């Protein structure tokens, strides 16, 4: 096919700026976090070694477990809604022309709104007194108030995330669908394939790669969500929508509990890395199976 990659040790020079930049931004702060996580202080910048105490405390306290549970539930729900919905939207989009590019622009709209503005938009939209959705739902006779009822707060936060991110899944799937050659559809039509058969045997195999990416991206980003729910619910009512990042910021910048916050950061980061690595490995095992396509 193409010329093989050449062995070229000096390529390191080309990568060096990126490595230095990312090392500066990632390694130094990470070391700071590790440093805090094994020390305690009584102020005056005097630190002393406490070993793994903070980690034990974080894992033993119910607080981290609760936030993690809420986080997992949120991420699962968001993935269950956004991936199928985005895929179905992509299947219904026009293939080309001005209508296709108008759809692209409208779908991309929520992706480019600053995250706190996304929160503001939904706050304004959902409030019972001044919001369109909030007052409409109450006018129909359903009792809805996201600032007081935990379930309503959850529905609002999930609806907001679906509003914000389904477009990303839809755009990814759409770009995957565009890579299906027209002759495949013609062949399927000659065979008299049903819509389902076309989807299952022509479109889905081509979508595999983008679906993996969509899944991983949505997993990572929903697991780190902070700004949007913070603006809308502030983590409440009570602790109902306090997800991991919100809890972490409360601990670090609110209570200035550095040791515990650092230990929590590391556990948090490790969970994200582990889950991504697991999915990546499981999904790329499927990749190495013999390909039935050409």
């Amino acid at each position, binding site marked *: 096919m193409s*010329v093989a990659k050449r062995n070229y040790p000096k390529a390191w020079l080309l990568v060096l*700026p*990126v490595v230095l930049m990312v090392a500066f931004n990632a390694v130094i702060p990470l070391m700071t976090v590790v440093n805090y996580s094994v020390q305690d202080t009584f102020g005056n910048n005097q630190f002393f070694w406490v070993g793994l105490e903070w980690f034990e405390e974080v894992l033993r306290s119910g607080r981290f477990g609760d936030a993690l549970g809420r986080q997992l539930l949120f991420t699962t729900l968001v993935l269950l809604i956004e991936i199928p919905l985005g895929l179905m939207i992509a299947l219904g989009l026009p293939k080309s022309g001005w209508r296709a590019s108008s759809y692209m622009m409208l779908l991309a709209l929520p992706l480019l709104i600053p995250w706190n503005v996304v929160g503001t938009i939904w706050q304004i939209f959902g409030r019972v007194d001044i919001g369109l959705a909030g007052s409409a739902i109450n006018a129909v006779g359903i009792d809805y108030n996201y600032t007081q009822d935990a379930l309503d707060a959850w529905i609002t936060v999930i609806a907001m995330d679906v509003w914000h991110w389904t477009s990303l899944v839809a755009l990814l799937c759409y770009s995957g669908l565009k890579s299906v050659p027209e002759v495949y559809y013609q062949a399927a039509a000659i065979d008299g394939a049903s819509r389902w058969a076309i989807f299952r045997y022509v479109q889905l195999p081509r979508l595999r790669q983008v679906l993996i990416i969509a899944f991983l991206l949505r997993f990572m980003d929903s697991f780190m969500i902070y700004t949007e729910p913070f603006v809308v619910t502030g983590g409440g009512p009570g602790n109902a929508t306090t997800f991991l990042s919100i809890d972490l910021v409360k601990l670090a910048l609110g209570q200035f509990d550095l040791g515990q916050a650092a230990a929590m950061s590391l556990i948090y980061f490790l969970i994200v890395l582990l889950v991504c690595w697991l999915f990546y490995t499981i999904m790329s095992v499927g990749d190495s199976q013999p390909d039935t396509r050409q």
Partner: protein
Amino acid sequence: MKFRKILPRAHVIFILLPVYWLVNMSFKSNQEILSTLSLWPQDFTLENYATILTDPSWYSGYINSLIYVLLNTVISVSIALPAAYAFSRYRFLGDKHLFFWLLSNRMAPPAVFALPFFQLYSSIGLFDTHLAVALAHTLFNVPLAVWILEGFMSSVPREIDETAQIDGYSFPRFFTKIFAPMIASGIGVTAFFCFMFSWVELLLARTLTSVSAKPISAIMTRTVSASGLDWGVLAAAGTLTIIPGMLVIYFVRNHIARGFAMGRV
């Protein structure tokens, strides 16, 4: 009409409704917002926009945000270009591990880094500068830029490089005269995503600034005052933050789909 044709329309309406409500509210006075619920402004006013556009402490937020976003885009793309070329063309010691290490930074929750970043940038004297935010945002934008550009570059056959070499092109000349124009749309798409992720981020931008480089999203929290929230100004400020994004989308509208596919964003 078939369900699969209706679904995209329904979703677009779902996207537009909250935005419509925001824009609608931005043209209302605060009194009207709190007293009546109407589908369009009864008493149309530009007062809220005037408040923002005449007060430097408001509009400087937009300028600050745009400065660090553009700075970040330039830095990210220019250092990612050679790296992406190396990943797409050469094998070298630790290349695969390096690639995944870079990507793992895309998975780091910004909340984890907020406090250490504050200390790091304070200690080197960059706190409250545009450069600090631009550099901090490279944490997630550089890995992303390398990833997208590598995808675009790998789709250019390697024979091109060798032919150019035989024809006597030096590497820098080959890169700028031949290679860069071939992946121009890829560079555009990469810049788009760097712009996007830097523009929407708040947590790090807010942590690293206090006065002179404060982003608009942080200034918006000012609308909370003793007399309650100034909803009208908040809505106007929100509406204004949507505009730069819409302009950028307009320019890349025909490349978005391709960019997503090539770039595996």
